[in-house]
Structures are given as structure tokens and as C-alpha cells.
């Protein structure tokens, strides 16, 4: 249990709830009620049914034969890319909207970077007939136009975040401000394992279905629930949190988190948080954060909009701090090459986020009988334009 949240809302020295008093009643309501609500039998029944019939779970665990041959080992892909809406994000939005209804909330707000979480939120709001406002950085709206229109088709209002650098961190700021202004009727569906306690733990629990299924599927496939490695990409880190969750206490399972190095860790254009960051407070929790010496948050860069975040979830900060997970930095080029490699060898075009996890395998030497699971968190349809601009295929 030493890797999960303690009763004060901390993971080691990270976590907590660093929020203005105006948000305290909302966050406190969540904190005192989330576990009772999400483990209540009726909730679980509804949640599991939607995950099966609406999201399409369990997602396959696929032995990637040609990729395995190349690495001379056994590589399995956890196919979160086959979830409805094209990524793991919907596992969390289904859970949170069911929770919001039980809290009696009528309206939903969310932040989004690349638009995947925004689409997943707009989707469940349409499903439940709830009003949905999504904040998105003005610059991200321009670079992710198809996702903006997807949200609008689904009935959501997309509000441009015009403050700061007009990207994900500013969209998050705007969503928090909206919540301060509308404290009673609105639930804020945070899209990653970030934010004040209990969000990081709550989102990790909703995403933990990923590693729960991996264990069952590995047991069936190879007669052993434990892989030797689990690879996942980390922006805020929700897919990684879900993929690591049920292996945290099994120290013989090597957990690998792939961060976006952009043009290179030392290029000044990167989102490699653990390589470049220091402990600090952002969006309600103490974590590792890319910042100036003066404590101003630095705007990160990655070719992948989903990894373009200056912090990581507090649990990941802890896993890094105590050495439970290995963090590796993957450049744009390494990720794009890995994405094209998977497309050619397995017929699967991955999201560029997930391509970072695939590329991270190159930093390791595997044994022939190792079992390696890569969490393929999303599909590449949304990234076609980036692939086309990249051009080297």
C-alpha cells in the first residue's frame, strides 16, 4: 500500500489539496464521499455494464508477433486504442459522470489539451443528457480542430482559454475558475491523475481497470498474471496510473513511464517533467513541476498535445522519487519512428502519445522469455495531420 494515497491525501511527499478556500467545500464533498459512492454495488453494476456495452471492454491484450521478433522477446499491446472515442480517457469520464449524478450535480465542466478528454467528456454528457462545457486553450483549438468539432457535434460548448500560454495548463486554470464561480451545481471532470486530492486517486481507480484486465488476460494467455515490464506514456499520467495500478506492490514487475522529450531534454523545447522539474505546486497538488528558479510554471513542448503538460500526477512523482517506476525521455523523432514502425509491423497506427511508450522499449534490453506489456493508450486517427506533416513514412 506504500505506493497509494495515504489518509491525508499524500503519496510520500507529493499530493495534498492546494486549493483556494472557495473550492474547499466541493473538493471536501468529493473526498469524503468518493470511495463510498464508487464501491457501492449499484454504482459498480452500472459502471461495469457501461464499460462492457458502451466502451467495449475488456480491450484485447494482443501479442504483437512481428514487433516481438524484432525485439527478440514477447510484446503484448493492451489495446486501449479500441475503446469507444479512441483512447483510455473514457474509462474515467464514465466513472466520474456516474459519480457526478450521485452527488446531485447537473452540469459538467472539463479541461482538454489535445481534445481526447474533452471528447470523452462530451460523449458521456451526451449519453447522460447533461450540460457540458469544455475549456481548451485557444492554441490547442487551432491545432486540434477536428476534436473541437467532435465535441460540438456531441453537444458540448467549447470555451477557448485565452489566458497564459493558451494551452492545457491554462485550460485547467479556466476550468478551476469556472468551478469557483459555480460551486454547487457543477462537477469538474478532471481528465488525468492530477489536481487536488482525491482526484489523482479517484482517476487512477477508474483507470485501474486497464491493469486489472491485463492480469486476467496474462493469466489466461501465459498462465501467469505478472509481466516483466509494463510500458506507458506519461503526460499527466492517467493511462500509466491505470496500467501500473495492480502491479505497484509486485516489485518484480518493472514499470516504465515514457515522458516527452520534445526536441531533446536539453533543447528548451521539452515536456520531460522528471528530467527537468523540481517539486512544486500546480493545479492543486504538490508534484514535480517544470518551473523557473522563481517558481513560475514553464510552458512545455511536445509533438504530442496529450503529453504537453508541465507537471505529472503526484503518484507518479512519488514513484519516480522512490525509484518504483523508471522514467525515460523520448524525443519527437523517437516517438514518430516508433509510431510508424508499429503501423508497418502490426497494422496499428498509434496515437503519438502511445508511440512514446513504444519507443521507450528501445532503451531496454529484454530476455527472450520476458513478457513486455505496452499500454497502447490511444489510436492515431486524431494525429493523422501530424503524421502527414512529419512525412517520413
Amino acid at each position, binding site marked *: 500500500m506504500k505506493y497509494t494515497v495515504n489518509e491525508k491525501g499524500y503519496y510520500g511527499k507529493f499530493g*495534498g489539496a492546494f486549493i483556494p478556500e472557495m473550492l474547499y467545500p466541493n473538493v471536501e464533498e468529493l473526498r469524503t464521499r468518493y470511495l463510498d459512492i464508487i464501491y457501492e454495488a449499484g454504482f459498480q453494476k452500472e459502471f461495469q455494464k457501461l464499460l462492457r456495452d458502451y466502451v467495449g471492454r475488456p480491450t484485447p491484450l494482443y501479442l504483437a508477433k512481428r514487433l516481438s521478433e524484432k525485439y527478440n522477446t514477447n510484446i503484448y499491446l493492451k489495446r486501449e486504442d479500441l475503446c469507444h472515442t479512441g483512447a483510455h480517457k473514457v474509462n474515467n469520464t464514465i466513472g466520474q459522470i456516474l459519480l457526478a449524478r450521485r452527488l446531485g450535480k447537473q452540469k459538467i465542466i472539463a479541461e482538454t489539451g489535445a481534445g481526447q478528454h474533452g471528447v470523452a467528456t462530451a460523449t458521456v454528457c451526451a449519453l447522460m443528457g447533461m450540460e457540458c462545457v469544455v475549456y481548451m486553450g485557444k492554441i490547442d483549438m487551432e491545432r486540434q480542430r477536428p476534436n473541437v468539432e467532435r465535441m460540438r457535434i456531441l453537444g458540448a460548448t467549447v470555451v477557448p482559454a485565452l489566458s*497564459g500560454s493558451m494551452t492545457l495548463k491554462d485550460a485547467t486554470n479556466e476550468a478551476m475558475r469556472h468551478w469557483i464561480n459555480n460551486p454547487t451545481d457543477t462537477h469538474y471532470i478532471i481528465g488525468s491523475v492530477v489536481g487536488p486530492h482525491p482526484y489523482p486517486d479517484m482517476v487512477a481507480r477508474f483507470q485501474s481497470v486497464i491493469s486489472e484486465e491485463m492480469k486476467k488476460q496474462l493469466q489466461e494467455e501465459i498462465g501467469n498474471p505478472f509481466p516483466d515490464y509494463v510500458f506507458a506514456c506519461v503526460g499527466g499520467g492517467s493511462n500509466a496510473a491505470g496500467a501500473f495500478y495492480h502491479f505497484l506492490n509486485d516489485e518484480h514487475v518493472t514499470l516504465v513511464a515514457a515522458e516527452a522529450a520534445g526536441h531533446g531534454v536539453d533543447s528548451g523545447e521539452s515536456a520531460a517533467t522528471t528530467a527537468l522539474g523540481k517539486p512544486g505546486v500546480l493545479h492543486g497538488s504538490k508534484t514535480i513541476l517544470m518551473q523557473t528558479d522563481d517558481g513560475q*510554471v514553464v510552458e512545455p513542448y511536445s509533438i504530442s498535445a496529450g503529453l504537453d503538460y508541465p507537471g505529472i500526477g503526484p503518484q507518479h512523482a512519488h514513484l519516480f522519487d522512490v525509484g518504483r517506476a523508471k522514467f525515460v525521455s523520448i524525443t519527437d523523432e523517437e516517438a514518430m519512428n516508433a509510431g510508424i514502425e508499429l503501423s508497418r509491423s502490426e497494422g496499428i497506427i498509434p496515437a503519438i502519445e502511445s508511440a512514446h511508450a513504444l519507443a521507450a522499449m528501445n532503451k531496454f534490453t529484454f530476455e527472450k522469455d520476458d513478457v513486455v506489456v505496452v499500454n497502447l493508450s490511444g489510436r492515431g486517427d486524431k494525429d493523422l495531420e501530424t503524421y502527414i506533416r512529419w512525412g517520413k513514412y
Partner: protein
Amino acid sequence: MKNRITDVFASGKKNILSVYYTAGFPTLNSTVAIAEALEKGGADIIEIGIPYSDPVADGPTIQESNKIALDNGINLPMILEQVKTIRKTVKLPIILMGYVNPVIQYGIEKFAKDASAAGVDGVILPDLPMDAFLEEYKPVFDAVNLSNTFLISPTTSEERIRRIDAVTEGFIYAVSASSITGAKADFAGPQLQYFDKLKQMKLKNPFLIGFGISNNATFATASSYGAGAIVGSAFINVLKASTNISADAQAFATSLKTKA
């Protein structure tokens, strides 16, 4: 605890006017002149904002002033130097208001020591939670006579207000509505009921009402319930439009304090 803040409230003074502005805004070195002008104009407390890249509790006006100040090159060490200069002439209590991350990076103990030495009397960090304050900040603040002020809002429970009152020495910052900062035209009925409830609670600390105080009328209304009021965004708007910062800052403070 005894400092310039506790002295102001102990004096029994009514209609206490606390004025917020952002350090380094509108220009890098305007911080000192604005403090001097506010004292001349009749302000009772000066709140100097430490600009931050991600001010989640602030509306567009203060967000913009933060951004301009950061673009001007301001940082916390420079702000402490400016406070030292202000202290050569200004007698009013000085509060630093900002977000917790720049303080953590500066070092909590070093911040408390340096701020106090520069002449700061109190601190407001809206995103500093009470448990972290009690554990890590209160002992070092107490050691150098720095008051810490917590915010409360209309959604804060009575029980929590009493807890905040118990750990506060100085004053409580009563946010007038469930909102981020920003100038608003007038108070609505539920807000007045909330102010009245606070008044009836007979807290050990005085409270100042802030958020949405924009003019003489809202200041007078707020002051009739609490010890006084805090004005921020409305003053930032004045500074933004000003061509004579000292004269306009002084006139602004005077206009708020003048009975309508």
C-alpha cells in the same frame, strides 16, 4: 502576535481600507510609488501581489496584471527589495499576497525571515491549505511575527470558519461571493445575509470583505458589516488606465474613504 496589522485592528479604527495591487505592474518599479500614494490617500493596509504564472483564484484583470508584471521581469527577491524601500517612508501594514509555489521555491523559512526583515507584516496565500499551513508555515511565521490570513467564502461552513478563526492572528479575508476576483457593480441579498451571519458569529478576529468591492458605495456597505474591505481589481483597472500613477492611486484611496 503583535505587528502593524494587529495594531491597526486593535486601534478600533472603522472602515479599514486595504488596497491590493500587483508588484511590478504597470511598470517594474512602480511598486514603491504606489505604496506611498496609497498611504497619502488614506489607505490603512497595503497588499502587494506576488505575480504568478497560474493565478487560479483570480479573474481576468488580476491575471493580466500578473502577466504584465512577469513580462516586466519582476520576481520575489526584487519584491522584497521594493518593500525595503517602501518601508523607508511608509508606516502602513504591508501584506504580501500570492500563490504558494513561488514561496516554496524561495524557501519557506527564508521567505518568512526575509519578508519580515524587509518590513512585511502578513501573508495571504489562497492556495495554501490549512493542514500544510499548521505543519510547515505557522511555526516559522510566528517566529518572525508574520500574520497569515485565510480566505473564507459563502460556502465555507460555520464549523470551518471557527477553525480558521482559531488559528488566525490578524484578520480573516471574507470573500464576498462564490467567485474569482473581479470588480462587480453591487452586492445582492444573499451576500448581505452572509455578511450579517459573519457579524453575528462574533469571531475573535476581525474580518475584511473582499472580491467585488469597486467603489465608494460597495466599500461603505462592506465596512458596515466587517472591520472594512479589500479592493483589488478596481484599483488595477485604475492603474492600467493611468498616466499619473501616484496622483491616481492617491485619489483612488481617498475616493473610497470619502463618505458618499
